[in-house]
């Protein structure tokens, strides 16, 4: 039993800062939940509260049905039966790799022979069994984080916490280790909480993803659903959906820019006089100027400002409506346009995300009503 229940958790730093604000979250056994958000959103504080390294102001935390924080109870970190992977690895520099990995078992009082065997086994899982007698300073960053992973899993804790474990690694290593964490999770079936600000990491690793904003849950959903229907424009932007068109109502039409460009949004009942249209870069296509749209296909004309060649994919930067910049992404050389060319930007209404209201809530559905 290793589900995690967080109830009405609040943690402030001084009177002005509320790092976690009345947060409630249930994590099922074997689930890997990713906490996603920009720095300062409270994700690391939440993780540290789970680990017992930070003391919440109020609320309740239970791990595996056992209350570890709540009311007058606080179980100290070392009795919580957890594993934690740090951003800067935190391998003790005065111990060898094997000693580092065996440490949780040593703390439990496991015999030397048994813990050496277990450490070897854990190191084999992360493909570091050849490093046993090295000191942390003598191995590379990627190896250090693998060893730190081995240390976190060696005692088979009921909950493993990851605090931005891949942020200090280079791009390629990040990809490899992501895959390894996925495999470990699948093999060992631990319950996990994973903090990151990288949306790719969140999408690839999470059973569910929690997007945090100022200590509250902005959205909680499986990765696919999160990317398909970001609940607010904050979530959409954080997921990298950056093409934004600020629309306002003029008579019965939706317009943007100066001079005003009209966008045809058929049959959309809207609660507000202004709204925001967000578009994924992959959902935009470019066509020759003057191209016609369709029933659910919107066309806006603009000028290519720049083309960024990125190897596999390229980005076309198009300015529309005098000042609004859209980015269209496609395989390199998909479209023949270069800087200065006039183009028609097209997108399906089905793919567009429309946000309105003071906290930018998703208006649904956009295209389906047609």
């Amino acid at each position, binding site marked *: 039993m290793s589900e995690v229940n967080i109830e009405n958790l609040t943690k402030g730093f001084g009177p002005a800062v509320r790092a976690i604000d009345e947060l409630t979250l249930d994590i099922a056994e074997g689930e890997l939940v990713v906490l996603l958000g920009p720095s300062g959103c409270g994700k690391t504080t939440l993780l540290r509260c789970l680990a017992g390294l930070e003391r919440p102001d109020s609320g309740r935390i239970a791990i595996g049905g056992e209350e570890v924080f709540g009311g007058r109870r606080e179980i100290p970190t070392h009795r919580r039966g957890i594993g934690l992977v740090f951003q800067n690895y935190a391998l003790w520099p005065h111990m060898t790799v094997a000693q580092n990995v065996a440490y949780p078992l040593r703390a439990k009082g496991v015999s030397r022979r048994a813990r050496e065997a277990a450490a070897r086994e854990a190191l084999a899982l992360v493909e570091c069994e050849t490093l046993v007698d090295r000191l942390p300073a003598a191995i590379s960053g990627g190896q250090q984080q693998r060893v730190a992973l081995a*240390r976190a899993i060696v005692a088979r804790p009921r909950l493993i916490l990851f605090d931005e474990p891949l942020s200090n690694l280079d791009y390629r290593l990040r990809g490899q280790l992501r895959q390894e964490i996925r495999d470990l999770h699948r093999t060992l079936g631990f319950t996990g909480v994973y903090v990151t600000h990288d949306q790719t990491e969140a999408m690839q690793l999470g059973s569910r993803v929690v997007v945090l904003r100022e200590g509250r849950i902005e959205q909680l959903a499986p990765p696919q659903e999160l990317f398909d229907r970001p609940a607010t424009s904050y979530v959409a932007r954080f997921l990298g959906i950056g093409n934004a068109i600020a629309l306002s109502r003029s008579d019965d039409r939706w317009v943007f820019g100066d001079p005003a460009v009209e966008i045809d949004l058929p049959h959309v009942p809207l609660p507000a006089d202004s709204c925001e249209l967000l578009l994924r870069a992959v959902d935009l296509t470019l066509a020759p100027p003057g191209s016609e749209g369709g029933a659910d296909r919107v066309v806006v004309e603009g000028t290519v400002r720049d083309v960024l060649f990125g190897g596999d994919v390229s980005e076309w930067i198009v300015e529309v409506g005098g000042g609004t910049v859209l980015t269209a992404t496609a395989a390199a050389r998909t479209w023949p346009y270069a800087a200065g060319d006039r183009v028609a930007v097209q997108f399906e209404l089905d793919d567009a995300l429309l946000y309105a209201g003071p906290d930018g809530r998703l208006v649904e559905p956009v295209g389906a009503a047609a």
Partner: protein
Amino acid sequence: MTATASAPQRVTLAAARRPARRRGLAWVSLALVMAVLIIWPLVRLELRAFDNGGDAFTRMVTYPGIGRVFLNTLIVAVGSVLIAVPLGTVLAWLTLRMPPALRRVMAILPIVPLMLPAVAKVAAWTYLLSPRTGLLNTLLRSWGLGSGATGPLDVFTMTGIVVISGVTLTSFVYLFVHSSLEQRGAELEAAAAACGARPWTVFTTVTLPLLKPAVIYSTGIVFLLSLGQFSAPLLLGAPKNIDTISTLMYRVSGDYPVDYALGAALALPLLVIGLLVVVAQRRALGDERRYAAVSGRARQVGVRTSWWAAVPLVIYLLVAVVLPLLALVVVSLSPYWSGRITPSRFTFDGWATAFADPSTQQAISTTAQAVGFTIVLVVPLGYLAALALLQRTRVPAPVRRVIDLISSLALSMPSVLMGFALLLTYSTPPFRLYGTTAMVVVAYVSLMLPHAIRPQLTSMLATGPEYSEASRVAGAGPLATTWRVGFPLIRSGIGVAVSLVVIMVIHEFAVSLMVTSPGRRVIGTLLYDATNFGTAPQVAVIALLMVAITTVGIVAALVAGGARALDRV
């Protein structure tokens, strides 16, 4: 199933019943212990000054020559700052302009003068520069400089006191500025140069502003240390009756019965200035963590180097270390001191006599005991205090602030003032410890606490909290974490703390002089007795003994703390 599940449940419940309140109590009692050791004696002393409607102040202002005493104190302080701060800064800057191979050896050397006990150094300078028999003076006269049987230089003057005090304190400035320069590395300067700044612009816009914290900090330290400067005015001022506040306080402490009220009144200006300097430093520097947490991995790249940069350093070492040590060796080997080196008459009689003297043996054993007990008490206290200062979320903020205040306050109090306060507290009821080793130990613990905190704090800051957190997550309790992770990681910091305490205790002179009785001397006070009642070779032998004991202590601490500790002393 139920039975197995309930057993660990009970264990965790018991652990959970040790909530924040009890932990808070432990930290509060730590703050209380520190307050009793340091604040209480000071408060007790200063309260005396206001007894009887404050007539002690009347006695003070009518004391003959009191104006001159205050002026002297100020001259020594300002003069020392004017010598030590520019000299130390330039030496530190020059160290980084040496070729790397040379720098590795030379960079540590300007700290060596700190290892020479102040009273030993002052004694040595009297053999070098006393007007009639000073070695350098006879040498200068033989070159035709000066005339007659005395001069041309005289160490027993205000100038002598100021110069010796300034040269001694240069090492402190060097220490702070050098580590600040080294931590930053040359990359920041290289970045400015890459932006098109000329060398002079780089120096004024990047180098100097970055040095500001170190220079301000060391200016404050030097000012306070020279304000309380004791050994130089005591040994050098006596022939011409040059008094400073600290020597006057010592005189007062020697009368019987001791006029504590007068001493307290004299001490008040020192205390107030000490407080003001601490506050001013805090204001100027802001949060010191901003400067302490800089990584030490910075590199010295793209700096033009030259062997010439070593010349001023060598001259400084010659003046501050080599000459005084040579003088001591020569005098200790001479049957009597005449101002001439006559190797044919060198003898070890002085050494033999000193070792045969029971008071020497007794002083060495008292010193060793006092040092041992002090280390055993003060290093763990310092560890806990450093821990309290770092655990921002676990230790209640007021407790942390009190600990912080006490440790910086103790640093800013001249030792003669602390000595006077400790004498009052522990020689009067209910303690009556005067004449015991216990009194010496209590005094040293109070005095050394800040020096035991600082290196351990620096070490902890450098390692960060993650290592201990990782250990707790791995299931190790607080004790196991401290033993297996905390201590090993700050081993060098502990080594530095131990060696600092050894150095400072053996060098400690003002407090020792006040709290030891004539029957139970430590080695520093034995040396002072010898300057008054003994012969020059005797003084030299004891001074060299002090140097030897210091060296042994430092080497032992380095062996325990790892060789890298030397870099941090």
